[in-house]
């Protein structure tokens, strides 16, 4: 029997290795190909001095290794389309994170200790915002924004503002669920003690509740930021003429690109990884090892995508 169990263990380990490779090999290949030279055929036809200024239409095949160059990174970081789009995405994501976290925090505080009878309808609405397919929300928001603009000229045109408005719906739900999970988890004994000792509701909130909720609030904001920054479908329909990073990335992937895209994607992967690690460390410090794992793992479960 032990021998069989050992064998099973090896089989599972082997499978896990295969799956991890499946998950990471493409990302790794993409990062490696950020250092890929254009093919010699393409270079022979191209007469510029900087090989990384070769346009997507002339670059030919970039999925075979042709030699090492690091110039795609500077080409990407000076690209006149990508960089403004990235800055736009960063701005929208920051605003969405702040608004969504404030809305989510307020709702989480009230909902956590509300009677289930009153809480259930609100909860259903929250989950609904997470499970309705994004393409449906996107087209519905598009026609909604256009109609509202037609009737109320003060309403913003399709653009940054409408992307932001649409994204806050989803992100507020995410933020609420994260903050509430923490709020419910930490119990109310300390707050009760503060009340007992004569502290008013506002002082209790400022001195007890808020500091203890801070890790969850930060995590919610970071997650909202990430989701908003990565979001393609909703902005693709409500952007008007504004370009965000996912929008230019998508059209590059569909209609032609150079490894400059790989370079920018690699830089961003690095930043995301750093953010994930910081979040994990913050959560871990605040709740201990198991709780941190739970928080990191349950968030995606609550959130969908």
């Amino acid at each position, binding site marked *: 029997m032990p021998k069989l169990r050992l064998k*099973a*263990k090896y089989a*599972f*380990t082997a*499978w896990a290795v295969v*799956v991890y490779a*499946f998950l990471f090999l*493409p*990302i790794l290949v*993409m990062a490696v190909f950020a250092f890929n030279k254009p093919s010699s055929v393409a270079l022979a036809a191209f007469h510029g001095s900087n090989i990384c200024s070769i346009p997507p239409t002339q670059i030919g*095949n970039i*999925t075979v290794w042709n030699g090492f160059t690091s110039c795609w990174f500077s080409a990407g970081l000076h690209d006149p389309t990508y960089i403004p789009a990235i800055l736009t995405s960063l701005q929208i994501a920051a605003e969405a994170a702040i608004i969504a976290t404030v*809305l*989510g925090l*307020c*709702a989480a*505080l*009230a*909902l956590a*200790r509300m009677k*289930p009878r*009153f809480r259930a309808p609100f*909860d259903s*609405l929250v*989950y*609904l*915002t997470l*499970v*309705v*397919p*994004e*393409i449906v*929300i996107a*087209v*519905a928001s598009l*026609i*909604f924004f256009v109609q509202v603009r037609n009737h109320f000229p003060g309403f913003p045109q399709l653009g940054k503002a409408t992307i932001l*408005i649409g994204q806050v*719906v989803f992100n*507020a739900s995410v933020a609420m669920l994260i903050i509430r999970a923490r709020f419910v988890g930490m119990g109310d004994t300390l707050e*009760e003690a503060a009340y*007992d000792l004569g502290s008013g509701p506002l002082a209790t909130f400022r001195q007890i509740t808020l500091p203890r909720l801070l890790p969850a609030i930060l995590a919610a904001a970071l997650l909202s930021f990430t989701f908003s920054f*990565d979001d*393609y479908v909703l902005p693709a329909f409500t952007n008007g003429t504004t370009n965000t990073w996912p929008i230019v*990335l*998508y059209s590059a992937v*569909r209609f032609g690109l150079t490894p400059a895209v790989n370079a920018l*994607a690699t830089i*961003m*992967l690095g930043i*995301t990884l750093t953010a*994930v690690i910081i979040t994990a460390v913050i959560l871990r410090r605040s709740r201990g*090892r198991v709780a*941190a*794992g739970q928080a*990191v*793992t349950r968030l*995606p*479960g609550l959130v969908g*995508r």
Partner: protein
Amino acid sequence: MAVAEKTPEVAAVPVATRRRRSFRPRYPAWLTAPSLLYYVVFFLGPMAILVAFSLATQQGFGSLRYGFDTSQYGLVGTSLYLTIFERTLLMASVGTVLTIAVGYPVAYWMARYLSTYKMLALLIIVVPFWTSFLIRTYALKIILDPHGYLAQDLGINVLYTKYAVAVGLVYDYLPLFILPVFASLERMDWNLIEAATDLGARPFTAFREITLRLTLPGVVTGALLVFIPMTGEYIIPNILGGGNYEFVGNVIGDQFNEAQNQPFGSALSIALMAALSVFVIVYILFATKEEQFGA
């Protein structure tokens, strides 16, 4: 001070109920008002307009007359679009089944055989989830490219086919499935397996009768969690299917981008939500319950 005031009162009434009620910190219900208002205006508002559009009549290019015109729904029911619905649901089912087949053993491995590096292994699984969905899909496209090594040297040339779409679904949604399943496997008491095998059960029987049964709720949650967004998928069929293998989501998008037939696109959206509603209701029941019990 407050304590001094309350003391005689506490002594006078039944202690337990009184205390809990008067001291339990509650936040006022109006704190939900901002987000409730926001949801009503910017979520239910668009949904209401979507319904109105789906019942409106298209008049020429881009102008509409509201009414109660169900002809768009009739068009959704024609064989061309029913095929697309069928294909979408079928591909999402295939994607979900593959995800279960690939992901369950990994979750099992982490929960059963790892100890020191368990959280690290989990974190590594989660990392792709936190990175951009588009970038991951693009990365997969590089691997599957017909000029790349996989196609040229191994002869696996599947880009722009349904196989590429299926691989893409599994690749992008795998982490999302592994997490809830891992959570339910984590709660497993492995002594039960020990006991069963001691009493003569074969390992597979023990797995089927104990592990599988106990983790089934997690598997259902995880499966719905990936099935629902897979059905609404827009990016993967476009990038990896190259437009040859469109999902309902892509057809909806086309009605608003190219065809400019917004009433029909709206009717398709409503039909998609209707097709998903059963799964969504089951998921919401599971999700809210899970949260209540603090699982």
